[in-house]
């Protein structure tokens, strides 16, 4: 995943990961997985709700979490591509995301 994300950065697109994990939890995940891109913490799911991605009570311990989704946003702040997975275990294939990123000019 890290190599794909480096391709995004080379294409001028900045990957940003968001979840209900706290900054400490995402710092752990980043260092364990060797990710260098930005991780943002949304523990009260405010941004997650604004994007209508709330999955109630589906976290461990029954916490609310985000359903997985990706949004490609251009320099004007407009969504240009999105992926809402139908299966909570499947995320967008990197190749699809990269193809969408290449179209941003």
């Amino acid at each position: 995943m890290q190599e794909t994300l480096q391709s995004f950065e080379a294409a001028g697109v900045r990957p940003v990961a968001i979840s209900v994990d706290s900054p400490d939890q995402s710092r752990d995940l980043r260092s364990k997985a060797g990710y260098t891109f930005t991780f943002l913490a949304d523990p009260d799911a405010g941004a997650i709700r604004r994007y209508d991605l709330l999955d109630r009570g589906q976290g461990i311990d029954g916490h609310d979490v985000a359903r997985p989704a990706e949004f490609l946003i251009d320099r004007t702040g407009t969504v240009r591509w999105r992926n809402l997975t139908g299966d909570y275990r499947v995320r967008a294939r990197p190749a699809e995301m990269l193809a969408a990123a290449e179209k941003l000019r």
Partner: protein
Amino acid sequence: MKRWNWLLWTGLVLSLVAFASYFLVFARWPVTRDVPWVNFLLFIAAMAMLVAGVRRALVPPATTTRKIISIFVASIGLTVFVLFASAIFMGTSRLPASAHAPAPGQKAPEFTLLDSNRRPVALSQLVAGSPRGVLLIFYRGYW
């Protein structure tokens, strides 16, 4: 010497391993998370052993106790398999509809969140600071 029905008990243990290993191990990699083929293979092997174990228990000398135990153990193993298969397939229809998620052409809603160094970062900052744009990756989180 009492003969031990290893097929039956190994089948049960394998069934439990097939179940637990998905959540503990295989769910971490997309290739085995999306379609848990390794776990299904383990379950098939477990079911085969349980069937063989039950058949062995029915062969003379087949005490009633052994027959009952073998059916019981095999049922547990089968139940674990059914629970696993249900969890995997039912997980897909349970996702919220997200009808109001921003669609292509719409403005991405603004937010300000803390990064992993606890510094506040706004979406508008990220967008302005990037040559072509930003890819937001919302993920479930593990905690």
